[in-house]
Every structure is written in structure tokens, then in C-alpha cells.
């Protein structure tokens, strides 16, 4: 499309109009709040709030929905950091180092850092959007079933490799997740697998129920049953809200370099924030000189996935706005809402209604800044959660977990599934089995299986699938490397210290 600067600035001015600024602010605030609740991620936030846009002008509606999406991305990491209970798949990576920071008494700093990382990730990605939307959209089209399969298997292996020293436990966790995804109707053959005649199970188990169960319910059970000493539970000290120079300088380059990775993953239809943040976290750990501090409250371990998943959420709009293809669950919901409002996002949008497209892109940029302000102001309020006595806090988390679960499928059966996964989460914590491989496997398992089968059919075999394109080969090599290199490195460094 080239950058049409006239429309760009016109869009900027429209986005700055009082009415639209108000929508950006409202959407951002609503999104942040909804995003903070366990189980209510961006897709649910947008879907639940769609009725507000009925009767609105379509540009404003797009701006409002975009802001809600964005706000939910910012809000998602709040509960990850404070309570170790991510609201959505893309906020899982924020628990890895965000929660340890909280335990070290740096909750305020963790929240600030995550907010700034989101701003940087979002801004880098918006710049990428403005200059590169079209070439990148055609890049995304290169991904066929074979390429997707290898990308997905790389993501899985990268996350398994995080469980350094005990990869077996990581594999067990991943396999459990893959087993969970076999439940439901098999899309290739239409066969019902492990549904036990229950129509509700035919669509499989929603990964959000698994996330809420394993994290929120599991965390509460663990704290109640295992940690007896109440004083040990939460650090009273929530620390400064402003980050130190050291935290900033350690996080700065990771935030900058992970943004493009998240952005590229976000453009791929179907991939999205969960995969982006996991890949960013694991690659950052590999390249970092202080990789061994990851998982123990390393600031860059929080900043890189947070930058990445916000960049991914901007990337997801590229296929939507340039080709009319929703790149994520959330953009699919937004697409549905826009069609009802009479706006057809797609290849003709930039030609027919450039002002709508550019107003929206500018609103994303303004929204980022507004959200940083909202989120920094909220920090003082949020850290008080940590001072809430456990006997009040845990019941509230449980209630929210059940509400969040109900909004996913409007079904009581999900409550039982939630409790089962709560117990699984508890056991995994006791046995010290990492939960991230399980969650990721549940999120991408079906997609991986279906892409494998399609690739196998269209390339007539595994070898042909592997050599289908340079992209497949690249991800296959990365997969092998991610499993073996960490082991190799640790052996090498061990050898060095021994000699």
C-alpha cells in the first residue's frame, strides 16, 4: 500500500478527536480491568463488550474494540505478576520471572517494567505495521501446513527445554497437554474422541479452562494446603514502583529485539501472543549472559515476553486489515463485530476507506500511550492486592475463576473440568513439574496435529514435508537445537569448571 502520509496524518487527527480519545481511554480501561481477571483474556473481553458498539460509527467502534483488545493485553500480565495466575495464554510467560520478582518484594517494579515493555513492543510493531504491512502479509502466506507444523513443534520444544536439568519432567507435562487436546471431535475424520457422548466435550476442552484451573485454582489450593506458615506467603514489602537503572539497562535491548519476533509471529494467522511470548522468553534466555537468573526474577525475563506479546497483538491486525483474514481468536471476534457494523476489513479497505484504516492504526499508537498512563496510575492500587489477607484474597480468586470459566462455555461441566485441572496444577506444583509445557501443548496441540496431517497428505510423506521450504528446514533445525544445545552447553561448561 505504501505509506499514504496524507491519510496517515488525517487519521492521526481523527484519532485525536475528543470522542475517539474518549473511546480509546474507555476501551483501554475496560480492557485492562477485564484482562486482569483470570480467564477473561482479550477475546472474551472483546466478545463480552461488543454490544456497546451497536449503533456506533464504524471507525469509533473499531477504535473502541482495538483499545479493549490492547487494554486486555496490558491487563493480562497484572495477575501473572502479582498472583501467578495469568488471565490468558499470552500472559503465561509473564509468570516465569514476574512472579519471582513479586516474591522478592519488587512487585511495583515488575508492574512498571511490564507496562514499559508493552509500550515498547507495541510501538516497534506499529512502526512495522506502517511501513511493512503489505510485504509482511505476503510473508505470512508462505506458511502452509508443513511450515506451521515445524513452527509449532519448535515452540513446544523450546518451552520444554526451559525446564533445564529436568527435561523429562518438561516432556511429561507436554505429553499430558497433548493428551488433553485429543478430546473432542477430530476435524479431519469427524470421529468423536473421548467425548463420552457428551455434546459439550465435542469441541474439546477450552485451553482457558485449563489455564485457570492449573494456575488460579492450583495456586490457591497450593497456598492453602501446602504452605502452612501464613507469613511466608506474601511479601509485605511491595517495593518501589519506579524501576532501577540496572533493571532498565538489562531489559532495554531484550525489549527492542524481541518486539520484531513477536510482531512476525503475530502476523501468522492462528499463531498469536502465546507462541510469541514463549518463543521470545526462550530465545532471550539462550542469548542472555545471565540466562541462569531466568525464572528467579530476572527483569529481562519479564520484559522480553511482555514486549513480544504486545507486538504480536499489533501484528495480528495485519492479516485482518490487509487481507480480511483474522489472525487470532480476538481479531476473529472483532471481524464479526465490524461486519455487523457494515465495515468490511479486507484487501479493499486501504483503497476504499483509507481514513478508517489509518485512523485505527493511529489509535493503536495513542492507545499505547494512554494505557501506559492508566497502568502506571493503577500500580499503587494493584499492589494493595498483595496486602489483602489470604482468607479474603483466595476466595475472591476462586470466585473470579469460576465466573471466568462460566463465560467461556456457559456450561456447568466446565466447573468440573476446572476443579480437575486445579488438582492437577496442585500435584504438579508439589512434584515440581513445570506447567508451561502442559498449557502450551493444550493451546497448540490440535493445530499441530491438523497441520501435520494436512502436510503429510499434501507432501506425500515426512521427508518431503521437511524439505517443503526453507522455513520448514529452519524450524526443524531450531527444534533439534533447542532440545540438545542446552544439554550440550551445560556439559561443556561443567567440563570446563572441572578441568
Amino acid at each position: 500500500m505504501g505509506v499514504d502520509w496524507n491519510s496517515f496524518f488525517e487519521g492521526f487527527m481523527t484519532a485525536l478527536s475528543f470522542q475517539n480519545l474518549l473511546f480509546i481511554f474507555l476501551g483501554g480501561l475496560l480492557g485492562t480491568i477485564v484482562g486482569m481477571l483470570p480467564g477473561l483474556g482479550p477475546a472474551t473481553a472483546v466478545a463480552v463488550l461488543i454490544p456497546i458498539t451497536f449503533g456506533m460509527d464504524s471507525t469509533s467502534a473499531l477504535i473502541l474494540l482495538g483499545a479493549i483488545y490492547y487494554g486486555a493485553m496490558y491487563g493480562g500480565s497484572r495477575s501473572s505478576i502479582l498472583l501467578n495466575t495469568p488471565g490468558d495464554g499470552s500472559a503465561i510467560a509473564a509468570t516465569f520471572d514476574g512472579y519471582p520478582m513479586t516474591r522478592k518484594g519488587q512487585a511495583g517494579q515488575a508492574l512498571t517494567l511490564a507496562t514499559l515493555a508493552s509500550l515498547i513492543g507495541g510501538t516497534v510493531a506499529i512502526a512495522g505495521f506502517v511501513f511493512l504491512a503489505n510485504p509482511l502479509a505476503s510473508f505470512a502466506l508462505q506458511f502452509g501446513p508443513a511450515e506451521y507444523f515445524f513452527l509449532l513443534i519448535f515452540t513446544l520444544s523450546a518451552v520444554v527445554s526451559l525446564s533445564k536439568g529436568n527435561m523429562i519432567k518438561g516432556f511429561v507435562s507436554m505429553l499430558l497437554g497433548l493428551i488433553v487436546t485429543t478430546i473432542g471431535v477430530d476435524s479431519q475424520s469427524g470421529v468423536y474422541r473421548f467425548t463420552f457422548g457428551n455434546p459439550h466435550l465435542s469441541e474439546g476442552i477450552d485451553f482457558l479452562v485449563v489455564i485457570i484451573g492449573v494456575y488460579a485454582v492450583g495456586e490457591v489450593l497450593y497456598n492453602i494446603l501446602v504452605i502452612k506458615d501464613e507469613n511466608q506467603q506474601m511479601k509485605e514489602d511491595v517495593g518501589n514502583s519506579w524501576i532501577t537503572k540496572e533493571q532498565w539497562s538489562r531489559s532495554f535491548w531484550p525489549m527492542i529485539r524481541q518486539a520484531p519476533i513477536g510482531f512476525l509471529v503475530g502476523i501468522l494467522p492462528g499463531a498469536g501472543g502465546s507462541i510469541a511470548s514463549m518463543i521470545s522468553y526462550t530465545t532471550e534466555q539462550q542469548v542472555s549472559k545471565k540466562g541462569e537468573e531466568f525464572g528467579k526474577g530476572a527483569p529481562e525475563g519479564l520484559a522480553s515476553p511482555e514486549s513480544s506479546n504486545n507486538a504480536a497483538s499489533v501484528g495480528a491486525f495485519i492479516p485482518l486489515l490487509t487481507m480480511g483474514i483474522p489472525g487470532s481468536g480476538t481479531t476473529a471476534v472483532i471481524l464479526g463485530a465490524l461486519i455487523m457494523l457494515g465495515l468490511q476489513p479486507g484487501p479493499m479497505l486501504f483503497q476504499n476507506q483509507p481514513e478508517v484504516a489509518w485512523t485505527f492504526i493511529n489509535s493503536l499508537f495513542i492507545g499505547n500511550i494512554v494505557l501506559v498512563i492508566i497502568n502506571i496510575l493503577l500500580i499503587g492500587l494493584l499492589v494493595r492486592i498483595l496486602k489483602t489477607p489470604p482468607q479474603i484474597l483466595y476466595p475472591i480468586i476462586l470466585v473470579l475463576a469460576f465466573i471466568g470459566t462460566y463465560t467461556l462455555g456457559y456450561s456447568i461441566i466446565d466447573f468440573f473440568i476446572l476443579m480437575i485441572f486445579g488438582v492437577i496444577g496442585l500435584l504438579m506444583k508439589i512434584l515440581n513439574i513445570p506447567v508451561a509445557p502442559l498449557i502450551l501443548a493444550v493451546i497448540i496441540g490440535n493445530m499441530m496435529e491438523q497441520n501435520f496431517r494436512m502436510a503429510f497428505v499434501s507432501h506425500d510423506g515426512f521427508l518431503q514435508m521437511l524439505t517443503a521450504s526453507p522455513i520448514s528446514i529452519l524450524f526443524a533445525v531450531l527444534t533439534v537445537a533447542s532440545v540438545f544445545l542446552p544439554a550440550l552447553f551445560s556439559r561443556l561448561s561443567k567440563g570446563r569448571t572441572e578441568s
Partner: protein
Amino acid sequence: MKKYFKVFPILMLSVVLVLSACGNSSGEANYPDENVELIAPATPGGGWDATARALQNVLDEEGFVEQNINVENQPGGGGEVGWQYLSDQNSHSLSVNSSLILTNNLLGQSDLTYEDFTPIATLATEWISTAVPSDSDIEDGIDMLDRLKEDPKSLTIAVGPALGNNDHLSFVRVADEYGVDVSELEFMIYESGGDVLTALMGGHADVATMSISESLEQHQSGDIEILATTADEPIEGAEDIPTWQELGVDFTFPHWRGIMGPPDMTEEEVAYWDETFSQMVETEAWQTVLENNGWQDYYMNSEESREFLEEQNQMYEDLVETAGLTD
């Protein structure tokens, strides 16, 4: 004071009478006398949800129904969960439906079928397109069918999100009419219509079958090429695309959406909705809904819908068998 007490019951009675007369223009029973529940057997954001919410908007804003109309999402099992729920409700609950009410049963995935409900109306339809990537060497629809006739496995066909849906079965129908061995066709099943489109534009599938509303704009921008549609007449604004009938394969295939109620609704209740919907489809507001969603008007009243469902059920039964989906 006593006087007033005597007058009061009479006053009350007349108020009730007047109200009931307003509530129901046909002057029969007082239906609907509580909130009307419109079931969308899907999550918010999908096609069924869009239909239900559009109906809610139009019926409410144009003042057709005095009572409140609420949309109730009951997702799961391709409509099964929502329709199970509907079958236990009273006549103040209605649900959106589509051909899945027939195929779920024919594919052995549900015990419920159209006969377990009261047909209310058929409202709108989409037509289905067959498309190829813009750089494909397939010349036209007939060329594609010829290739498949020669070797059914020579082309991969993208469809989503499941076999047995309209997009899939309409393709089976056209291929079958042309004499292709449809049990040998190689379908690639994608998770959504958007993924089908991506696969086609990226050249990862040779052919795709999907709703026109999902493919038309990409056709107009030259990203893909629609070979033919299942419509009964050329699509407005895209008259260059032939219908299969024009290409000589004699059939049409609507992807319709309608409304049905729980079993055992009374004649008066059905008549109420016949009157309401027949007026609603004439409104400007409903025409806008059709236009925004790329739907065509396909209104049939309750009686016509009942016959239509029977006829469709027969067609789907044959088709599901031809496609080799029952074994």
C-alpha cells in the same frame, strides 16, 4: 370512597383488556406474555450469534415485539448444546438454526432433528463459492471438474471447519452431479473460513469451497478467483462470476439460516411469529442487516419452512451417503 372501590375492578379489567389487545394484534391469546429468549447455539462473535443479535436489534427497534428479547448463548457440539436446551423450553424460547440441525442427525452426532422442533421461519441465505488461487492454471469450473473426473486426487480442496458442513457438501454435490468419484476427493480441513482463505491465497491448496461473503472481496481485489457459485442467479455486484447452473451443472445450494421453536407450540403462537417475521423482513433495518452480512433474503413462513426442511433433509441424506460420511 366506596364508589371508587366498585369502579376499581372494572377499571383494572379494562386496562388489562386494552393492554392485551395492544400486545397481540391478532387478538387471540396473550402471547408472548414474558421475555422472549433467542438462543444462539454458539459463542458470541460467530455467524449464529450475529443472526440472533441482528434479529434482536431489528425486532426490538422496529417495535415488533413488546416484550424484551434476550440473546442466550448456548455454544457447543455444532448447535447440539443449544438445541438440546431449546427442546426443554417453553414457547417463549426460539433458536437460530441452519442445515446443521439436519446434518448433525444424519451424521449420527445427534438424536435431535428438525422434526423435534417447531419450524418458525427461514430468513436468509448465503451462497457458496468455489475458488482457486489467482495464479492457478485451472481455467474454469468445468476444467476443474474434468480434472477431478479424471483423477479425484489430483487437486487438494480446502474446507473449514468440518466435513459434513454446507461448504463441503455443496462441493460434493457439484462433483457428484458431474460424475466425479466423490469418495476419493482429497479435502484439507482448516479450523475456520479465514484459514481456508489464507491457505488458498498462499497456494497451499488448489481449490477452496467457502461462503461468498468470505471470498468475494478477495476475488474483486484479484487475490483469488471464484470459478462458480451455487446461487440461483448471478450475485449482485459480481455478475462476472457464473453460477454452476450457467456452467451446465444443474443444481443450486443455499446456506440458509432460520428460526425454530421448541416442540408443541400452538397454532396461535406460530401465527404470531409468522405475522411478525413476514413484516420484519420487509423493513429497511433488516435489509441493511442482509446487506452488511452479505446475505440474501430467503424468507419462508412456518408452513413453507416445514416443507423446505423436509425437502432439504432428503437432499442432505442422499448427499451424506454419497460423500461416504456414513459408515
